[in-house]
């Protein structure tokens, strides 16, 4: 099949009665196209959803084989080690695995370090401008380093997770209720935000939106902290100081979307946005842990606002009530928009309108509880359709996760130690050491190069998924990162050869962990490896190339031993295959 056929329509028919842009609103239609690519996952034709036998939430009734289990685990976590796969398989079927993945009783992870309870604020008593700058710069630097460590802590949690979908859900929500660490600037706010994402990841969407609307990181990121009317937070009279940023994105990106999914008319007007800004005025981020938003009534405009066709003395709860009331059934518009986001993260980058419709109706009828929607989606015939399995493209974080986890690359786990000044730079500002350089390398250096630095999307709309991840800019970076981790590991066997980054890949021991190693023919072993690690098993040409890579010395099969050198080349070759980009 030619690429342009794929680009233009995925080679598939449009579902009857569902037109192109319709249903995608501004969420996925244009942005998908915007898709970076050129190449992109689509053409200028409207993006086409997957063609599947089932396009609703009818349950999967087929045999839950290794293929289905692998698919479920790949989509639910970051990379699937063989040991993890074996453990999940031992649970004995789809529902026991889902019960584990969707367990809502899982406690929140413990606070990584005491400093996430600390908020470094500028010292307002300093008047000397030089000392003031020094104070502010030092604190900002320390908060930035601490924020890096919050990012590393989360990546480490994701890489260690063997059983729950929650971290992957939280990652999806961080791409929905977007904040950017470089704007937020406070590690404590960032930490609290990630806990909020986890707390509601499978919880109640309405409560989630309320929590996120007053979340300190969000208040800073979208200028809620600068949205006041009457008085500023210090009590000075300032008049109308209303900032519309959060109100706009609350509707456009977090709840309603720009267009009504049925009528394709705008869900709201510019005047609604201006009035929402007035109604949302008065929230400030708290300054003591646990960090929460605080409502300051003297900063709120108590007057009448006209919003979505009604008029009243509206505040946050009223605005959310009206937003969650739009559509038929009541709330459908929010449910549809949010379920598109869930679908694009877990199923395929172009939403299937009828599946999303079923998800949205279920979300509304289950009174905004998210877990039942995930249960239904991940046990649906649609989810296990042959056209869904391995049809998505790994996000950079999924890519890094699968390299680390599936090849059992080891790294120093997150070190929670506090960050102390180690000296001053030429300008006299403090320097703070990175206590987790290897995790920083993964989360910031590689994540940044591949286009997905955790907690730092490019803009408030977040990352676009699927084909948008792969282009002439990012694909070579994926290849280079494979070389750095597997082919020429930054350090080998844990020694500190390259600075203090330590990624260790032991190809010889890794190859011994697969079934049949040491007893069976190597061709059997690598077949198991390849079918587990690649989205599509290699055909004869690739199989031969891979075999000749690991058995470059052309040893008789029975004598085969796994040398680290050839093993590393073999592992890197696997991870460089386009098949490895599939999920």
């Amino acid at each position, binding site marked *: 099949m030619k690429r342009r056929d794929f680009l*233009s329509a995925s080679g598939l028919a449009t579902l009857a009665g569902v037109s192109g842009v319709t249903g995608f609103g*501004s969420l996925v239609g244009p942005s998908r196209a915007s898709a970076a690519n050129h190449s992109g996952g689509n053409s200028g034709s409207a993006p086409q959803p997957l063609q599947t036998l089932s396009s609703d939430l009818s349950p999967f009734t087929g045999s839950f084989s290794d293929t289905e289990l692998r698919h479920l685990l790949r989509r639910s976590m970051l990379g699937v080690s063989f040991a993890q796969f074996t453990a999940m398989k031992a649970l004995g079927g789809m529902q026991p695995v889902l019960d584990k993945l969707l367990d809502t009783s899982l406690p929140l992870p413990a606070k990584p370090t005491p400093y996430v309870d600390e908020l470094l604020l500028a010292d307002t008593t300093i008047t000397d401008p030089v000392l003031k700058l020094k104070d502010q710069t030092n604190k900002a630097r320390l908060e930035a380093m601490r924020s890096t460590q919050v990012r590393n802590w989360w990546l480490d949690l994701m890489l260690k997770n063997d059983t729950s979908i929650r971290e992957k859900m939280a990652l999806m929500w961080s791409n929905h209720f977007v904040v950017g660490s470089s704007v937020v600037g406070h590690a404590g706010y960032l930490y609290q935000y990630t806990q909020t994402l986890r707390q509601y990841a499978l919880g109640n969407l309405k409560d989630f939106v309320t929590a996120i609307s007053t979340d300190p990181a969000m208040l800073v990121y979208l200028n809620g902290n600068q949205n006041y009317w009457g008085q500023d937070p210090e009590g000075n009279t300032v008049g109308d100081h209303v900032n519309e940023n959060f109100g706009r994105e609350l509707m456009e990106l977090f709840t309603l979307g720009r267009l009504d999914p049925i009528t394709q008319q705008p869900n709201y007007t510019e005047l609604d946005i201006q009035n929402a800004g007035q109604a949302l005025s008065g929230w400030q981020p708290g300054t003591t842990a646990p960090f929460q938003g605080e409502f300051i009534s003297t900063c709120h405009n108590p007057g009448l606002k006209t919003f979505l066709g009604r008029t009243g003395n509206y505040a946050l709860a009223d605005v959310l009530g009206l937003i969650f009331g739009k559509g038929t059934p009541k709330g459908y518009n929010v449910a549809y928009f949010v379920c598109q986001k869930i679908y694009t993260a877990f199923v395929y980058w172009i939403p299937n309108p009828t599946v999303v419709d079923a998800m949205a109706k279920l979300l509304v009828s289950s009174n905004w509880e998210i877990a039942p929607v995930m249960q239904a989606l991940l046990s649906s015939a649609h989810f296990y359709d042959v056209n869904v399995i391995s049809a998505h493209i790994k996000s950079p974080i999924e890519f890094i996760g699968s390299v680390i986890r599936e090849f059992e690359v080891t790294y120093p786990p997150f070190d929670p130690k506090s960050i102390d000044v180690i000296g001053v730079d030429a300008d006299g500002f403090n320097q703070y050491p990175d206590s987790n350089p290897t995790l920083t390398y993964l989360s910031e250096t590689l994540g940044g190069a591949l286009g997905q630095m955790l907690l730092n999307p490019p803009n408030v709309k977040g990352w676009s998924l699927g084909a948008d991840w792969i282009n002439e800019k990012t694909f070579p970076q994926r290849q280079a990162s494979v070389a750095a981790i597997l082919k020429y590991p930054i350090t080998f066997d844990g020694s500190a050869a390259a600075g203090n980054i330590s990624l260790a890949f032991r190809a010889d021991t890794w190859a011994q962990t697969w079934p049949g190693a040491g007893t069976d023919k190597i061709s059997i072993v690598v077949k198991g490896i390849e079918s587990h690690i690649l989205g599509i098993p290699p055909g004869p040409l690739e199989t031969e190339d891979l075999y000749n890579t690991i058995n470059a010395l052309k040893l008789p099969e029975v004598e085969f031993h796994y040398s680290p050198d050839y093993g590393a080349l073999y592992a890197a070759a696997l991870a460089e295959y386009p098949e490895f980009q599939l999920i």
Partner: protein
Amino acid sequence: MKRREFLTKGVQLGVAANALGFIGSAMTPIQAFGRSPLRGALSTASTNDNILVLVQLLGGNDGLNCLVPVKDPQYTALRPNLRINRSGIDLKVLPDHDSLAMHDRMAAAFPLYTARKMAILQNVGYANPELSHFRGADIVHTATDSNIYKHTGWLGRLLSDQNPGFDPTKVVAGSSPLGVNLGSATSNIFLAKSGGMGVPLSHLPDAGNSAAHNYDPIPSNPSTAYQTLDFVRSVQKETEVYSDTIAKRAIKANRVTYPSTEFASNMASVAQMIASGFSTKVYVVTHSGYDHHSNLLSGQAGLLNDLSEALMAFQNDLEAFKVADNVVTMTYSEFGRRPAENGSGTDHGTSYPLFVIGTRVSGGVRGADPDLVNLVNNNLNYDPDHEFRNVYATVLSEWLGISDAEISNVLTSSNGETYSTITKFKKLGLFWPAGVAPETSQSAGFGLTLGQNYPNPSRGSTTIEFAIPQSTHVELGVWDVGGREIARIVDGTLAAGPHRAVLATGSLAEGTYIYRLKTPLSQITKQMTVVR
């Protein structure tokens, strides 16, 4: 060479990854590229060698603090905290248009204006504006009416029409991308119905990272997974082809020093590609961070400084390479910002000033200053002449030499799709017509004055007033937008002081005309409209 052979040798020789590229590229015949292929790779309809560089100011640049209406009391009133027409701020007042001044931190780019290499279009916008970043960007990229939703971008449609049959899977070794996107943001601007026409790059790709792949074929009637696989493989292939192109081409080093910002580095890469003879017709470079809901004063200042320094370096570089006469740089945003401040920043707004830069640009300010009194939903109105698609049509026609019929395909309708209810676009006379030497003098030009003709539009006849600082030879001529000289009203030595000339327009076709006052030292150009 097959992958496995390399892998074997790789171990023996202990070579690193880039050896792959060396081996791969040595297999393909080396082709020479001169400057002439600028036209060559664009197979059919391109009528000239000109190149367009778009600079996207992402986030919505605040126009009023960028090009400041310094004398407008309403500006002062709307921005009690954020106005920058204050003593102590060294705004760059436009010498020939003193109601406007550039932001003080645009000082680096100010010489582009005084050298008449910069045109400023005021109040660029469209009807029923969208104030969402994302929908707003889609509208300016897909070039549709505000209520029309399309996926293809205007440059994608252009490049697709100009290169029928272009297949990204079949790009040949040594070829140049049709369009290039640099910077963090990507968009559907290059998307065509048949696929993407542009390539996103983070910088000039490393030379020659290609390998022969022994891939198994995609089965017939593939599942979606195989289609995704095919897509990934095709990106890999295209990446390698363009890496090869870089490897085989002597990439020229920049001739000026650029600032050390990511944006400047991207502009430096564009200059290198142009100077090294890439046939790429259009570049889009993104400069991000303009969404100043807060912190407008310091935030925008830093960005405008970075922008201005990079644009100046880029222009100087192009001139040093002697390719500047073929390159035009144009800024754009998804929208402008609200005239009234919100205290520390400005919220999303509508129309904004747009900058066009190049040696062939007819410099100066176009259109009236923003009307800060008659606002629409608290936002600026736009100048119908500067409807953004008039700007696109002008660039397509006057700069890239695209026919009106093709412009209609790109901007109005094609392939059974309608992008716009506008069927006739106004061309703005932004560039020096071919054969007309652009003005070369710098500040000396400001000794001359050239008034706007009146009445304008002209019916039958119109009057042009001008003044010269000292007695000199003077030419006052009129050109149509196609570059044909229509009339020479004055051609002789005149005394110092004010003069007046009358032009009969009764025999002229309706449309836009350019008139130019020229002395041996300098020149000024304006435009007029003729109606019947």
